[in-house]
């Protein structure tokens, strides 16, 4: 396909790949920290209103309106307030925050400064997944620069406002991307999610009001102020402002992170010359996961859908964290689901029984079917186990404290809805019909 998708001027990714893009010097030359200057001329409540007006929605997975989240923080709390940045990017298929942290960390830091000032926060913790060694080095260097430049520390760009920013690295636990588990981890504990309510905006870190925002969400905030909320809102759809980063992986010609208009469809992302450049010769799309591995899978005939929160919700799936995984017609759906199920079994924190017991059970059943040992009734059993963790549709009926249960059950439900034949063929033929090549044969290892 030629370029038919609506071209946009990138705002988040504009400087990626350019020399020294991660330095304060580079960021300032591009107009960096001008959004903070503008915000500091406004009253805190007006800043929050501006973010509400921009229709910015959280980019971590849930798509919650950012301004609304900020407005839940009580104004009269005697406790200190905190901002926690969620950089635990671990949902399979998602790799966008890594680029922001490596190539333009000051954009996120500017968002942190604006958010902190608006919320009355004086301490911010940037929580990055433990495996992000290089992103953490770049991010820490940027924080150090920001202290030296009078952005963090006793004064905020000359204003009498103390703001400290500390980077914390996790240690290998997907669950810590769940916001209350992240707070537990920041408190120095194992990452067990908390019951909600109370929500973190009221009872968060150290029992104090806390906003948890994703890296990309905060990197989007400065643009709301440099361009204005109306401009930012108009970039998107009625309910989702701005542009968004999507992560394209799997069996396409050109995987990568692309900044797209919210109107861009999945088909355009896969085929357009600006983005994925289509499928390798002789291959066809079989299935696409549109928003990280927990998002219900779509079939090849369902790709004419905008990669935007509301449009994907209509399809009973989700935009999630922007992780789009493409599977071609040589891919075995049983093996793919088995791999995804193994992830959630490995990462279940063990707190709730349906998830602790259900996720390994799914994995055992899938392995059995893939290895040709499946029996009649196994598919129904698999469906029942998934439903015991979280029924579907719609999304969000999980029987667990946090959404990891939903995340583990949704792939199973949706793979069975669309590709049940393949599961049954494995059982009937007592083998994987794809033989010893159940994965697409791509790259050097094919």
């Amino acid at each position: 396909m030629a370029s038919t998708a609506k071209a946009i001027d990138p705002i988040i990714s504009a400087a990626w790949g350019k020399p020294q893009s991660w330095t304060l010097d580079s960021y300032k030359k591009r107009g960096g920290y001008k959004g903070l200057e503008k915000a500091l001329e406004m009253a805190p409540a007006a800043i929050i209103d501006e973010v509400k007006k921009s229709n910015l929605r959280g980019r971590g997975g849930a798509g919650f309106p950012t301004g609304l989240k900020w407005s839940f923080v009580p104004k009269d709390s005697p406790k200190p307030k905190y901002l926690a940045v969620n950089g635990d990017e671990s949902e399979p298929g998602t790799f966008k925050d890594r680029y922001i942290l490596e190539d333009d960390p000051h954009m996120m830091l500017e968002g942190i400064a604006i958010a902190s000032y608006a919320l009355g926060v004086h301490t911010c913790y940037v929580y990055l997944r433990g495996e992000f060694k290089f992103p953490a080095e770049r991010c820490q260097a940027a924080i150090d620069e920001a202290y030296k430049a009078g952005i963090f520390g006793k004064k905020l760009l000359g204003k009498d406002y103390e703001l400290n920013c500390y980077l914390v690295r996790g240690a290998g636990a997907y669950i810590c991307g769940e916001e209350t588990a992240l707070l537990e981890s920041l408190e120095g504990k194992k990452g067990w999610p908390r019951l909600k309510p109370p929500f973190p905006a009221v009872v968060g870190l150290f029992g104090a009001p806390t906003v948890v925002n994703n890296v990309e969400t905060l990197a989007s905030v400065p643009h709301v102020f440099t361009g204005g909320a109306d401009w930012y809102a108009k970039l998107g759809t009625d309910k989702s402002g701005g542009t968004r980063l999507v992560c394209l992986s799997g069996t396409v010609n050109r995987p990568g992170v692309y900044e797209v208009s919210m109107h861009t469809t999945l088909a355009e992302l896969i085929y357009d010359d600006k983005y994925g450049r289509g499928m390798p010769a002789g291959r066809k799309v079989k299935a696409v996961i549109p928003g990280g591995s927990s998002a219900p899978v779509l079939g090849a005939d369902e790709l004419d859908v905008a990669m935007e929160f509301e449009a994907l919700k209509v399809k009973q799936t989700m935009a999630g964290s922007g992780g789009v995984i493409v599977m071609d017609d040589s891919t075995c759906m049983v093996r793919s689901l088995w791999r995804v199920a193994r992830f959630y079994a490995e990462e279940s924190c063990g707190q709730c029984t349906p998830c602790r017991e259900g996720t390994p059970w799914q994995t055992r059943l899938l392995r059995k079917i893939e290895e040709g040992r499946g029996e009649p009734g196994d598919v129904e059993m698999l469906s029942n186990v998934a439903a015991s963790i979280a029924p579907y549709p719609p999304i969000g009926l999980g029987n667990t404290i946090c959404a990891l249960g939903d995340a583990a059950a949704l792939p199973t439900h949706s793979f069975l809805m669309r590709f049940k034949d393949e599961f049954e063929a494995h059982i009937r033929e007592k083998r994987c019909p794809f033989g010893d090549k159940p994965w697409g044969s791509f790259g050097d290892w094919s």
Partner: protein
Amino acid sequence: MAEPLFTPEEQKKFDAGIAEIISHYPPDRKSAGMLPALRLLQEIKGWLPQDGLRLVAKHLEVTPERAYEVASFYVMYHLKKPGKYVIDVCTNLSCSLWGAEKMLAYLEEKLGLKAGEANEKFTLRETECLASCGTAPCLQINEDHHESLTRAKLDAILAKLS
């Protein structure tokens, strides 16, 4: 007497690191520094020996059990001494679509280890998604990230590990 946990230089590094970590949290919340403190200990010793866990707990004013509870929850902490090089291979969906399982098998044969096994030089592990799906397949060696791996590229990386 048992051998001391730290050499004098290591002790200096640990003391300075712990003081810095504690300064990031409210005075009555020292225990919040658990993850960074365990990381510090592991950076110094290469793993988390039991007397090290006790020392961290003492500095953060919690019980040793609490330190162990955290150390055993997160996969990046080593409660046993690992090989000199810890190789974590992502085999999640996007990487597998680009051959990660074959890459792991290649490594297993080359190193003479199965995933999950270790010798003095290498610890080989399967790991979960490393957020590098667009540059699959990928792996990390002692937390250094390597991506878009081919046989030739992987061989060159391994050849440098002495």
